[in-house]
């Protein structure tokens, strides 16, 4: 790399497709209960053609985050910019037009396709809504879409129940791609599928990303699947991102104790090693019960008005919340 290239100012870095800043979602109190901060001050970028994997356990807020980004869930604060345009304050009509740039692939391929519509009708619908192609080109475009996801165009005359789970998920992906989006939120897109089918859908999503320069927010609880899909990974716990970095950084040198806990719990397909892991003393998870109180590194974020975030390496950071108290004096990685 030549010197002028290295000195290139950061503005020249390609603009992110998606820019999320301090996104928060508050679920109002139910009778007798307290309000729940489902998503708390989420911030990240997704570059063109890149995947951010969002992992966390059920209830961590990852699905709510995906829905808030797509403006399917009202946010209580923060900003979501898609292709440089702010979505959270956008008027309904304009937002509807922006929807062709962002699409949603959901978990269950069994319930997300209308049982009484043919595959052709399912795929025509978004094209009609967004007036994406003239009526006389509709069939041609539907056939194109089916080919794009490696399905036979002759399938357009058939109904969802005639297809396997994997084929249905291909149809769901084709429907999302109908309007040539730039960005997809994939929420557990393979968790309902058998392991061989999962591998095929992951490969399809990867090849589509390459061919169409798509950006993905890939939400999943399965850490191994995210490892295969994501360029960057964010780990969520109780509504916050507790660690974010490149996939290699997060998986090879996890910094946050919660990330390590998750990675250690994943079963390894090696009988002797896995048995030895199951026999080890179970991890002490009590540190996750509180939020750790103040900053583990002893900073006063509230007073200084800074984010509760600490860089471990370039592009790799951790939250200072949810650390075991004894680690307070000497967090090994920092």
């Amino acid at each position, binding site marked *: 790399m030549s010197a002028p290239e290295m000195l290139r100012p950061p503005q020249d870095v390609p603009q992110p497709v998606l820019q999320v800043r301090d996104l928060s979602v508050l679920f109002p109190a139910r009778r007798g209960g307290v309000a729940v901060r489902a998503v708390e001050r989420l911030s990240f970028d997704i570059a063109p053609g890149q995947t951010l994997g969002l992992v966390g356990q059920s209830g961590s807020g990852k699905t709510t985050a995906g829905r808030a980004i797509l403006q399917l869930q009202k946010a209580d604060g923060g900003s979501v910019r898609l292709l440089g345009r702010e979505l959270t304050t956008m008027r309904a009509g304009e937002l509807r037009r922006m929807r062709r740039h962002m699409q949603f692939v959901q978990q269950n391929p069994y319930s997300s396709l209308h049982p009484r519509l043919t595959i052709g009708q399912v795929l025509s619908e978004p094209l009609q809504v967004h007036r994406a192609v003239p009526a006389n080109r509709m069939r041609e475009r539907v056939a194109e879409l089916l080919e794009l996801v490696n399905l036979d165009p002759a399938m357009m005359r058939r109904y969802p129940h005639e297809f396997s789970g994997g084929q249905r998920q291909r149809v769901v992906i084709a429907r999302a791609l109908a309007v040539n989006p730039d960005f997809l939120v994939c929420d557990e897109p393979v968790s309902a599928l*058998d392991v061989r089918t999962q*591998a095929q859908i992951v490969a399809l999503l990867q090849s589509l990303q390459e061919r169409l320069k798509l950006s993905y927010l890939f939400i999943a609880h*399965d*850490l*191994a699947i995210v490892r295969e899909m994501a360029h960057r990974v964010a780990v969520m716990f109780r509504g916050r991102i507790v660690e974010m970095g490149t996939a290699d950084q997060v998986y090879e040198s996890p910094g946050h104790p919660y990330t390590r806990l998750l990675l250690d*719990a*994943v079963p390894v397909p090696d*009988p002797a090693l896995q048995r030895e892991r199951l026999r080890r003393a179970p991890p002490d998870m009590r540190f996750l019960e509180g939020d750790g109180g103040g900053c583990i590194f002893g900073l006063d974020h509230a007073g200084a008005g800074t984010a509760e975030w600490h860089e471990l390496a370039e592009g790799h950071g951790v939250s200072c919340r949810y650390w075991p108290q004894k680690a307070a004096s000497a967090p090994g990685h920092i």
Partner: protein
Amino acid sequence: MTGPLLSVRDLAVTVTTRREVVRAVRGISFDIGADEAVGFVGESGSGKSITAKALMRLAPEGTAIALTGSIALRGQDILGLGEAEMRGLRGRRIAMVFQDPMTSLNPVMSIGAQMGDMLRRHLALSGRAARERGIELLDLVGIPDAARRIDDHPHQFSGGQRQRILIAIAISCEPDLLIADEPTTALDVTVQAQILRLLLRLREERGMALMLITHDFGVVAGMVDRVNVMYRGEIVESGPVGQVFAEPQHGYTRALLDAVPRLQGTAG
């Protein structure tokens, strides 16, 4: 040396629904030793869950099943038993834990009542003894504050706790064989690890046989002695777990193992 706890020969299961007749299991044979853990791995539709149900002579909901072949439990042929005898055997000698703890528990009965039901029926315990035994069992599977929580209802527990409760109910009558059908599939990864640890510990402490059914090779890896790989109603490969992982013989087993996503390039 005595024979195996369970001996299955040429078992075929035909499932009849309103729409179709499916030969779900096509003549399989296997043994499970008295203190052995055996994994059944395969994809949906491979016949692994139907096999487990057949061992208890249960039909999937809304279907009728026809069984041929033989299933011998400690030498006694189960297929020849009447329904009353089967009721005495289910839960008592063979017990089962299913994937979804919410649908296997009765939502309007307290946990204590559901455990008591089983204990009174099979072990003829008094109400008071059953309650005490129930508290012990909840404690054993790691439900904190068991004496108070025994009166709670299923919805008052987390998913992982409900699975622990199902396991407590399943082992309450000290069965010879525990069948666990995808016991951790609906659970988060840290909870999955807890449940697997619990099953491993209970099996070793109680010398109970385990039949673990899963699509996930990672789940069977640390848990079982032997693996049967099922595909389209047949056992296509069978062997000690280490050998099946290290040198899979059947192409289908290799395909399943290759499809397992890995955290690291090398096992570590």
